[in-house]
């Protein structure tokens, strides 16, 4: 019957579609392509549950189609008598209460240990405190031998756990909270998400198997630019990571009179930038990201734009225009001021 076949086709399309996710190309936030132990553990739990669900799906939809076809009223030429007035069947009903309950108990038996396994604190991790801001991420490497502060791009060595503390209790020197609204930190290919909640402290761990750039983004609605609050986890070899740490620990480049960046440097300190941004050594702004080594990053403004002089110029012209709700105001900089500032920012490697 055409009716049932079309329903079948739709059901099949959905099923096939689900399978196709496994083969989608260029899906850098694909949860079904885990590349770290936590995400893989989750995947190994999800996939069997998916197949159990798929079997029940086929069973229920199959029975529905069979019944629709077999028992449909064929009108005039249907010579069946009226149906038997069946009110129920205790054994059957008992059966389809108990069988799903047993299946679910099996799923529960697999789920509960995994919950505790994932919640276990890793040994010898790199400790990073993460603070979500509207609309960018701040990372503070708190281990004494690292002691680096950066934004949006989380560097991590492969094969080693990063123990993330999403600390919503941190306060600025004036007593106000660092955290603003709720954000959620998520790098799908490495682990599930954990919320960053003002006034609370949450933990999660990340570990990447192979070097690469793992994309993620904020997953708790946080205002106008929730969609633009992105992030990258950059996994590199231990040697590369150590080199990155050494770069980050270097003091900021401070142009002197005569350098091409000097004019920009002066603008930076006089035009209000320093009120919000820290550049180690000479400014202590606490509103925006730390810019000490901003040009060593591959992206900026919540990992929204690729780092380039052209993009920086565009951004400085009107930040809220580029990123709705950005707390960085339009400073009405002249094109000349912008090019000087960009020249300075380019030195902050």
């Amino acid at each position, binding site marked *: 019957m055409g009716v049932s076949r079309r329903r079948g086709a739709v059901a099949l399309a959905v099923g096939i579609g689900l399978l196709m996710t496994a083969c989608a190309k260029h899906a850098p936030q694909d949860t079904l392509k885990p590349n770290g132990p936590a995400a893989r553990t989750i995947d190994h739990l999800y996939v069997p549950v998916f197949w159990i669900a798929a079997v029940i799906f086929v069973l229920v939809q199959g029975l529905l189609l069979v019944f629709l076809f077999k*028992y449909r009223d064929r009108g005039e030429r249907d010579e069946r008598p009226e149906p038997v007035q069946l009110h129920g069947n205790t054994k059957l009903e008992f059966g*389809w209460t108990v069988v*799903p309950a047993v299946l679910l108990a099996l799923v529960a038996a697999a789920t*509960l240990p995994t919950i505790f396994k994932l919640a276990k604190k890793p040994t010898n991790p790199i400790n990073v405190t993460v603070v979500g801001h509207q609309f960018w991420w701040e990372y503070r490497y708190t281990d004494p031998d690292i002691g680096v502060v950066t934004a949006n791009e989380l560097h991590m060595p492969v094969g080693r756990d990063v123990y993330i503390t999403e600390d919503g209790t941190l306060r600025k020197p004036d007593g106000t909270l660092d955290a603003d609204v709720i954000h959620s930190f998520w790098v799908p290919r490495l682990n599930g998400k*954990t919320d960053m909640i003002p006034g609370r402290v949450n933990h999660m761990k990340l570990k990447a198997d192979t070097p690469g750039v793992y994309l993620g983004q904020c997953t708790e609605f946080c205002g106008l630019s929730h969609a633009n609050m992105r992030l990258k986890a950059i996994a590199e070899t231990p040697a590369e990571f150590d080199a990155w740490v050494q770069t980050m620990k270097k003091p900021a480049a401070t142009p002197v009179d005569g350098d091409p960046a000097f004019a920009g440097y002066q603008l930076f300190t006089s035009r209000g930038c320093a009120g919000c941004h820290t550049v180690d050594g000479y400014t202590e702004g606490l509103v925006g990201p730390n810019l000490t080594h901003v040009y060593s990053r591959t992206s900026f403004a919540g990992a929204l734009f690729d780092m380039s002089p052209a993009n920086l110029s565009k951004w400085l012209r009107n930040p809220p225009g580029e990123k709705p709700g950005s707390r960085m105001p339009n400073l009405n900089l002249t094109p000349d001021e912008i090019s000087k500032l960009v020249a300075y920012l380019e030195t902050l490697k």
Partner: protein
Amino acid sequence: MTEPIAYGQTPPLTARRSLLRRPTSTAGLWGWITTVDHKRIGIMYGVSAFVFFLLGGIEALLLRLQLGGPNQHVLSASAYNQVFTMHGTTMIFLVIMPMAAAFANYLVPIMIGARDVAFPRLNAFGFWTFLAGGLFMYSSFLLGGAPNGGWFGYVPQTLKAYSPGHNIDFWVFGLQILGIASLTGAINLIVTIINMRAPGMSFMRMPIFVWMSLVAQFLLLFALPVITVALFLLMFDRQFGGHFFDAQAGADPLLWQHLFWIFGHPEVYILILPAMGIVSEVLPVYARKPLFGYAVKVFSGIAIGFMGWGVWAHHMFATGLGPVAISAFGLSTMFIAVPTGVKIFNWLGTLWGGKLRITTPFLFAVGFVAMFTIGGLSGVTHAVVPADTQQTDTYYIVAHFHYVMFGGSIFGLFAGVYYWAPKVTGKMLSDFLGKIHFWLMLVGFNLTFGPMHILGLQGQPRRIYTYPAGRGWEFWNLVSTIGAFTIAASIVVFIVNVIRTKISDQPNVGADPWDARTLEWTIPSPPPEYNFAEEPLVTARDELWHRKYDEDGDGRAIRRELDYPVVMDEVPDEVHVHMPSPSYWPLVASFTLPAVAYGMIYRAWPVAIAAGVVEITALYSWALEPSTAPPDPDEGTEDHGPELDSGEPAAAELETADAD
């Protein structure tokens, strides 16, 4: 005891010379505005909810246009946040809830053999308050911006510090007003179902729709106070500088989430149970078999009602509640799937061995079973907590709950619309157009929401107004947008069907066009104001079916040979039933509530206080006004119309309600 009034006749004027004379006419526009008839109120609920459904649908189309491709500019970020917030708020509070209220209002009394609900004026108040709340919330679009904090309104995002405009204020006050509407409706229906069943209608003979409505109303009764408390606290934070949710001052923002979801999860069952009830009424009629496992259906509905209170934190698996707490909520979430699964298998059992008449209402009911199953299965994957930390706040969740709320509730409600339309209007909707509607909607629905599973698993978060190219999301988002417009086309077909039927001159379908099973099909279509000329006596579950059919030795249905009609196809000429009189006060009391809210939002205290005084006056006037207007001594008795036939059955004089 006053004199009974003939049906359709104008009741006498009120004796008290009040400033505002009590309305007397049940005809014309004023008749609708001042009505206390549960059927008219049900129709008004349905029509208003459908208009809001169109608004919510237009919002959905805007969202889908914006997300149809990467980096679109149909909506700005600000507009997108308003539209997605209003889409969710509208579909839940202004569409599915009132649509379920429409069915319950219209059907519960005529399914249990009652002449009206227990509190007719409270019923009118509930409807007008819902409409006032909905219009109030939508007025925000004209007054500087609609709510933009999501239907879940998480703090601190919705606190004044992060949402300084009035957008959220409209949401906070609007939901409180809507809560009053739902709460009064819940109390009214609970009392009606418990107290006003016809003789012989024991609880286990009640139609399953009445049962599911009863469970849903109890859920409302206990869930609404929780959200009201939360909204009240948020109102204090926003209006008067409170610190209930202010992390800066040491408060815990998670408190909001707990309060919201203790309401919010039972709310899901409030939205789905009435639709389950509808499907359980529709399938047996077209399968020509009783509902398979009636008792198990009832108990699983009650079980869902109880267990629905113990799963709220599965909305919060990423908030860091700790492994013990999330394990407990993971388990409870898995186990609520058991009674839900039982329901699905019992529907299959109902079809098994039947003689299935493939009509439009039947197709929608089967569509419900098929689509709800998918939503239920994806729901189980959320109970697997670690998997949920990947899925939550992604499009996988959007897919899941649309399979439950749209594939479930909306399909079920449309099944009900097509099934009961002949009862309400006396005319059949076109089955041909109905089937086009169904197939377009089924295909469109799966095109829209099926791909969202994939998008979610590929990492597309919810509530994003834009996304970049290169995430692998372009194709399925485009498919989804095409699907959304297919759904829109199906709704156009439905509207055409309704209008064509409305203007057609098809003859009255009679009392029982579907050869149905329950009491509402024993009375004329549309039913007279008093519903039942004589109070029915109930001897069996599926009372009407048993009046028409016996069972042979094999248990097969055989039609009884009767020399009298079992249904009443036409309104009898002389029935004298005393019905409650119309009233202005519920209307006044309802529309004063938004005035209080405007006064508070705009700090126009005199307005708020004046509106509050009017509100209290209206409530007292209502309380002091008799349920039925007494005859006016000035008018004399000669205006009572023709002398009443004293030989009429005494049952016809029963008053439906003494006071409300």
